[in-house]
């Protein structure tokens, strides 16, 4: 039984999540502060053997699966964790609809410590959409996440960060890919968080596995955001693409490090990192790094940072756009990374956020 205060906060969180296109009531959960307050999975999915539960509960009830996969690629223990999500998709199960997760800060001064464990067994497919946001200012969100994608399995993870100016965030995600496994990561930050430190490591441990990570990061105010993504192409025929779009308004600072290490034959990697500065006091740093230990690996990168060009603005003005509309359109185009294959509802959510981001004034 929830207290009145928790109930009110939950209602508020559900409403805000829906606004962002995260409909947990269709299948998903909400972790508010240290506790999972809401969880729903359709009977149909339960019958297919999908396990979707709170992380501590999973450690007790599904200890064999938990112990086999937990804390393999990230350091830590459950003792240091408040809550988190455990998702297990058994072999050969295809999940067409996304599972929604929300991590919400609802108490001033709180430190929310999350650990998520996602296991997609061989020949399975799933999509997860996570929204991290806050109902209060001055709090900390700290999360660890491990994702195991089996042979010929596929997982798409979409994460939306929407924080307030006095929120600090620290996150670490590790992904392990089996033979022919596919992983797609789409991350959008559209908040004024005080600081974000987000590290991702993708380990290609099965031949011919493929990954793609799109980061769309926008900051305003005085945010200080640091991202680091490292990919290890450790098996034959593996490939990865890292795509970043960094947008700083006002005095926001963004630092993005991306690295692909090719350790085996027939590997391919590409880094595409673009930054746009819309304010005078902002700062963007991009550090693409390629490292190869194989003579036939193909690694490439392109990186650029700039501002909106006068000729682009004037061109659009001659087509009937006001200056403000022209800037929005150019920002909107800049933020597009060309992601394909997402369910319509998720695509629409991301499009709506990018639209909002492009209209925001610096």
């Amino acid at each position: 039984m929830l207290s009145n205060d928790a109930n009110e906060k939950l209602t508020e969180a559900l409403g805000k999540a829906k606004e962002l296109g995260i409909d947990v009531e269709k299948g998903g959960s909400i972790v508010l502060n240290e506790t999972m307050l809401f969880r729903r999975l359709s009977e149909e999915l339960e019958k297919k053997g999908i396990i979707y539960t709170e992380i501590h509960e999973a450690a007790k009830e599904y200890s064999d699966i938990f112990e086999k996969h937990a804390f393999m690629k990230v350091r830590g223990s459950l003792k240091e964790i408040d809550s988190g999500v455990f998702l297990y998709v058994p072999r050969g199960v295809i999940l067409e609809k996304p599972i929604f997760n929300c991590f919400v800060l609802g108490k001033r001064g709180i430190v929310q410590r999350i650990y998520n464990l996602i296991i997609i067994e061989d020949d399975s497919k799933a999509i997860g959409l996570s929204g991290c946001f806050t109902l209060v200012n001055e709090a900390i969100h700290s999360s660890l996440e491990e994702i195991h994608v089996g042979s010929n399995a596929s997982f798409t993870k979409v994460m939306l960060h929407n924080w307030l100016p006095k929120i600090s965030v620290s996150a670490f995600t590790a992904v392990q890919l089996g033979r022919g496994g596919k992983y797609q990561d789409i991350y959008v930050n559209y908040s004024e968080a005080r600081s974000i430190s987000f590290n991702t490591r993708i380990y290609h441990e099965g031949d011919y596995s493929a990954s793609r990570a799109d980061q769309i990061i926008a900051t305003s105010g005085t945010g200080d955001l640091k991202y680091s993504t490292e990919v290890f192409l450790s098996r034959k025929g593996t490939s990865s693409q890292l795509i970043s779009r960094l947008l700083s308004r006002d005095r926001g600072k963004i630092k993005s490090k991306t690295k692909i290490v090719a350790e085996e034959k027939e590997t391919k990697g590409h880094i595409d990192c673009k930054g746009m500065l819309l304010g005078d006091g902002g700062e963007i740093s991009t550090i693409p790094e390629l490292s190869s230990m194989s003579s036939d690996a193909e690694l490439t990168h392109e990186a650029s940072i700039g501002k909106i060009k006068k000729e682009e603005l004037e061109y659009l003005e001659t087509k009937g756009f006001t200056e403000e509309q022209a800037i929005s359109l150019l920002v909107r185009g800049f933020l597009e990374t060309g992601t394909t294959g997402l369910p319509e509802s998720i695509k629409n959510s991301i499009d709506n956020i990018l639209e909002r981001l492009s209209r925001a004034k610096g």
Partner: protein
Amino acid sequence: MPQKILEVSNLTVEVGGKIVVKNANIEIERGEISVLLGPNGSGKTTMLKAIMGLSDYKIVEGKILLDSVDITSLPPWERARMGLALSYQNPPPLPIKMGMLLERISKIYGKEVNITNAVNQTVITHLLERDAFSGFSGGEIKRSELTTILLSKPKVALLDEPDSGVDVESVRKIAKLIDQLAEEGTGILLVTHVGLLARYLRRLGKGYVMMRGIVSPGGDARKILKIVLNEGYENLYRR
């Protein structure tokens, strides 16, 4: 009865402190294609950009009337919304998908404009998912620019060398589109310096020749074209 839709009177334009267009007078009629001929560097593009209101092209003297309304001091986007359109010779590559650009343009000019029809006419469907004007061939650039014009359904279209860098077959297609625009009532000022495109146009009206910043009085476009193609610009200028 011909109806004047654009009147440019005594236009003098300065670019970077230098006078590039001197006391130019041009009149465009509804549904008619006027041609502005001239060698490279004579000031043709400068005049079009000044008429469109681009900030680097300073009008130091003269007046521009669009459908009898003085637009001389209006910003480009207002001129565009009042019915003036410019097709660039070399539009800048944009970080926007061509399809998104066309969709947004059509939103400005109303729902009755059909994007599918326009892109089918100009044969640019294959470009919609690509960044606008980035890595496009000469013909693709011209056809894409013309699509933006079709979507805005302008009263007057200023077309800056829509035939340059385009193969002969594409020139015919472009001529057809321009004729169609004119048939629908748009007054057209077509800039070209070779005149090949003009040979295919059916609704050709007046012709102007621009040399060293000075525009000749308007005459019969076909006659002027003939002289230019046979004798060159210098001889015409001496006349």
